[in-house]
């Protein structure tokens, strides 16, 4: 098998990185144990993957993320539609949503801990709140971009509300919703894990903090490898779905 130049360079970079990492750990330049050898990290990873605590934490965190995403997405779509249809008031409120979207949602965490306690509910609440914004803004702006002509045609054909929703709004909102979901997944992911790292006794976030506090750095790296790998895979899958749906809807349009 012949490797292309890109693959060869990739391998060189990875091997070089591991070598530098090993050297850093062995050199004594950093606090001992901070850069454990990659063998130690692999061992910790293997131990992690067979430990029941990891799988419990993993399922709790996965549940939190999925719940946050479903609640946040549903609320975001509904609010987005309301803002998009809400005339002047909607326009004014959308401005607030735009600026609120850029504030660090983590500052609401103390408030959420007071309202929801420190269990998984608080993580879901923060995740849902944070991940609703891309959907609110995306859906509201897509609602406004529906050409007025379509609305007039719908009115002159006397379409019922349901027919308008099915034939006018749904096709117009489909793509922004898929794109919004992709962004929202990433946000729900970090929000839930960050909330776990601040305050919890179950879930992947608390595993990281626990290992860190006991200075078991190989374990910290192992959990991070799992989380970052999981996040990148999930986002890549949604990106592929997004692309396929775009292609699909382009084909349908051409066909029509």
């Amino acid at each position: 098998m012949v490797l292309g130049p890109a693959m060869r360079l990739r391998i060189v970079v990875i091997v070089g990185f591991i070598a530098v990492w090993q050297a850093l750990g062995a050199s004594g330049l950093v606090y001992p144990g901070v850069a454990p050898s990659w063998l130690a990290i692999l061992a910790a990873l293997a131990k992690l993957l067979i430990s029941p605590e990891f799988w419990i934490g993993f399922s709790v965190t996965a549940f939190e993320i999925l719940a946050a995403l479903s609640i946040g997405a549903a609320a975001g779509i509904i609010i987005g539609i309301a803002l998009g249809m809400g005339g002047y008031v909607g326009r004014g409120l959308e401005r607030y949503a735009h600026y609120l979207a850029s504030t660090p949602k983590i500052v609401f965490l103390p408030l959420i801990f007071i309202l929801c306690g420190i269990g998984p509910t608080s993580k879901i609440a923060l995740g849902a709140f944070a991940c609703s914004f891309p959907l609110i803004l995306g859906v509201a702006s897509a609602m406004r971009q529906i050409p007025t002509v379509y609305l007039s045609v719908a009115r002159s054909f006397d379409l019922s509300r349901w027919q308008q929703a099915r034939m006018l709004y749904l096709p117009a909102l489909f793509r922004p919703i898929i794109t919004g979901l992709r962004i929202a997944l990433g946000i729900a992911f970090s929000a839930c894990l960050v909330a776990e790292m601040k305050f919890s006794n179950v879930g992947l976030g608390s595993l990281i903090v626990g290992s860190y506090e006991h200075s078991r750095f190989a374990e910290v790296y192992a959990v991070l490898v799992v989380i970052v790998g999981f996040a990148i895979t999930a986002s890549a899958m949604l990106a592929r779905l997004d692309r396929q749906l775009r292609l699909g809807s382009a084909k349908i349009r051409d066909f029509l």
Partner: protein
Amino acid sequence: MGRESSIIAGGEDVFSRRGVWILDPRWLSHLSAAGIVLALALALEVAVRSGLLPAPSAVLVSILMLLDEEQLLRRFAMTAGEVLAGAGSGMIIGVVLGWLLHRGRLIRLVFMGWVIGLAAAPLILLYPLFLVFFGRGLATIVAMSAVAAVTPIILKTCEGLDAARQVLIDVGRSFDLSPARLFWRIRVPSAMPSILSGIRLGLAYALVGVIGVEYLTNFGGLGELIADLADRYEMAAMYCSILFVMLVSASFLAAIERLERWLTRG
């Protein structure tokens, strides 16, 4: 409802029409939204008088305490400095790396996927590692915010440099420009809007990163203040500092959006 939205979707002509200013649709939009928020605050005030939450008025008044005892302005300056330092270094690194990705075919082939993957990864979770390497101090916060800021800047720089219109490049060639002049006179100016929007995203991400890490590590400026007040259960002051952070980040975003528009105009 439906008719209203169709008037709005009908275009800007409705908005540019002159009239009594109070009836100008733009003002109506501002006023009605502000009215809703005020009504909510009023409802909150009533809910609070019955004893559930600190009163909004008490929250507002506690700004005096924050300014006096908690050195709100010094903390604000600290957070702002961290954001600027982080986003500034992220900007330098990001523009250089974006240029490298634009320039080297092989480099792009190897690293583009990795950069996109990193941009999608929840990098704030790496903060324990940064604590381990940089210690619990300013260096950790600045490094985290640089990492948060760098990926959009890399991607937007590369995208902008790639997207120079072929016609413009051809014009440059026909004037016999040297490659360096072609780059500085044509590619860079045409990439500027994209690079600036990358920097805008980077600044916004840096702010979120800085406040997040400050809150999580109980160190630094405004983020630490919120964590502190929550630990001490000083509710009115905590709400006030949350509002302050919201106000700061909204004005920050508005300022960089305006700056970006001003820089890309003309």
